[in-house]
């Protein structure tokens, strides 16, 4: 009896320990320029970041959170000289020209609903195996056109994708999204939830997703199961600016057509543009 209880207790203990958040230790991953922490301590590669703020006089600083395994990049050009309220005072030794920023490293992207109970273990695949998805419904009535996602170029940064460009016309709601490769050759689809608010960045985590052309389906959570679709090109940070620029030109052309061409015609051109960009990115 004791033999069987002990491993169980150990396992429960490990679970409890895993759920208790550790001290939020932040480490410098990458540094360019002069940077200081809230104590006025000069930062270097792998040094510990103390306090709620960082100060820099140029370049960029990348900080990782040891607890959440998340990283955040602070760029001097995007920071202002006005300090956020969390930075109470500028420590001595930090030049007046240095900009400051809140040193918080977000644990997860905005709008991502994590199924994990533990901070650094994603239990979603296991939970998906054990429980079935919620009951879905259709509404069998002729409804006409509704807001649909847009064809768009989306930035794929690691495993994070900012889907705001595609969701732009949709009203505020929580949406279930599904991403499937258009050509079906880049592995299976991935899905998740996103809390969308118009004109706000909305990053979602898509682990294992590679750059390429995808079919993005969105459906209102708790509503109908029939989702609306659009094509989305996931671009790496290196290719994203060029892809966006060219795609914007295509959008402007379709906008200039006005009422002379219907939506499906405009959509066809945008999809053709996305496909050519995807082929170029893939080196075809």
């Amino acid at each position: 009896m004791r033999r069987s209880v002990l491993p169980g207790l150990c396992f429960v203990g490990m679970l409890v320990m895993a759920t208790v958040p550790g001290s939020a230790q932040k480490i410098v991953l990458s540094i360019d320029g002069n940077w200081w922490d809230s104590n006025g301590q000069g930062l270097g590669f792998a040094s510990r970041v103390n306090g709620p703020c960082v100060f820099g006089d140029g370049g960029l600083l990348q900080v990782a959170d040891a607890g959440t395994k998340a990283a955040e990049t602070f760029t001097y050009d995007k920071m202002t000289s006005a300090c956020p309220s969390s930075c109470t005072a500028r420590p001595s030794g930090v030049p007046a020209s240095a900009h400051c920023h809140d040193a918080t490293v977000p644990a997860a992207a905005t709008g991502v609903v994590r199924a994990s109970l533990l901070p650094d273990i994603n239990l979603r695949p296991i939970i998906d195996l054990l429980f079935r998805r919620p009951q879905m419904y259709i509404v069998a009535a002729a409804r006409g056109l509704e807001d649909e996602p847009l064809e768009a170029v989306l930035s794929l940064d690691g495993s994070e994708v900012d889907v705001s460009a595609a969701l732009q016309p949709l009203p505020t709601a929580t949406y279930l999204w599904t991403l499937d490769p258009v050509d079906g050759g880049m592995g299976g689809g991935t899905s998740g939830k996103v809390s969308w608010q118009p004109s706000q960045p909305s990053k979602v985590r898509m682990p294992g997703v590679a750059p390429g052309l995808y079919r993005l389906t969105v459906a209102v959570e708790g509503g109908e199961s029939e989702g609306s679709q659009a094509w989305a090109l996931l671009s790496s940070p290196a290719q994203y600016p060029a892809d966006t620029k060219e795609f914007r030109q295509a959008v402007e052309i379709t906008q200039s057509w006005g009422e002379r061409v219907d939506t499906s015609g405009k959509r066809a051109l945008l999809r053709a543009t996305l496909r050519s960009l995807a082929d170029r990115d893939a080196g075809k």
Partner: protein
Amino acid sequence: MMLKRFFRSRIGRSFVVLFGLALFTHFLDSRGYLHGAQMALGLDPMLQVTAPSTPSEIGIVEITEDDYRNYFCGQSPLDGRGVIALVEAVREKLHPAVIGVDLDTSDWKPGDIPAPCYKLDLPPCTHKTDKGENAADPTCMANEVRHLVTENYPTKVVWAEIPREIPAEHRLKWYELLARLPKFLWTGEPEESKVLQLQTVAGRSPDSIVWGIPRFPLDLDGVVRKYRRRIEVEPSGPPKDSLPHALASACEACVRDNRAWQEEERRHSSEDVILKFATNKSVFNPKDANDLLPPLPGATKEKPTQANIEQALSIRPLTIVLIGGTYNGARDIYRTPLGEMPGVQLLAQALETDLHEGISETSEYNKFCADLLAGLGVIFLWNSKIVSRYVPLKRIFSLTLFGIPTAFLLLSLYLFHHRIWLDSIAILVGVVIHQVYEEFDKIKEYTEEIEHKDCTIAGLKKRLEESRGAEPQPASASAVSGSKSDKADE
């Protein structure tokens, strides 16, 4: 102590395995891992075989792609006054008792001043001001709808109410979720969005309006196979009628002498009912909207084909007529076991099912019990002394592997004939695994028996002599020597 001994015995172990396997197959079943096989090998073929093909008293009027372009100027959502004109045309030309409008009318507002498509040639929705000028009539739309729902109107009109998603603040609280935990663990289904906000027709038209919710549950494979008579809506209160059930309830002539329907009505069931799909679209006497609406200016009527004439002659007097859209912009096409189907046809299938009894699915508990019953059959065949005495092991194997699943398949067919769907795939999986276990256990038992007993020729001779009651001492001596010589021979 006795219980411990029982569980150590072969039969006890079999019962433990049976219960464990029943739980395992229930897990696979409830989490949807067997769904594909269940539908492909069980329900879908049965639905196709038993589909009714005789014309019903339900009719469909479709707004086709041409109608959408010609009568509604290709504008979506459809113009309200155009839809009302179509309802009037259906009443005048088909004389049904009930008309169902399977169109989204949630955009119609009390103060709306509709601008009907010029091709429909409707009178202007204006009134004369005191100065004699034409001004938009803000009550026009409400008056048009009111006209359709007055007591004097000879046909009942039932409208589709489009449900909306539930706001986050109205979702279940943690303690409510906790109370549902046992059911959640048993079925594996997370919180079900039963409550809905409705865009009620009553907000823009008289309270006497009849409506229903055209909402259908979707199976795990994205196929529609079921409907519900009632749907829970927000705010909490009695469940509201689904559109098929609201149509059936509105048709007094259809349900007056329909005892089965009345019995179901008394039960107030909100459970899923499997649809009885009609394979042929002609069962629902389809007509295009342009057959009923006034001809377009300058348009010539095409000469009817033989098929048109035969179809027209076969139409029975229609009791219920459904108006729906099959144009592409309607976004109203769904996957069913019979292929893709427009929403209005799906609604007709559900209405036909509602009026003439659908197929009920066996509950999870009954399925669990059936699985246990099949397992008991396996245990009986493998452990019964009577069976093992008269039936060779090979035949027991075949009986268990094929006989029990076949028996349950036949039972499933019989129940389906009586409008009950019992899935036998989970039972088949359980029986096969249980069979393998019993077989291995039997082999283990035989091996142990052989190991514990002296099964050499000498040993067998010894036991034979013992059973004959021979003198023990010399016999054993000869047996030992005999055993030695036998071993040497071997």
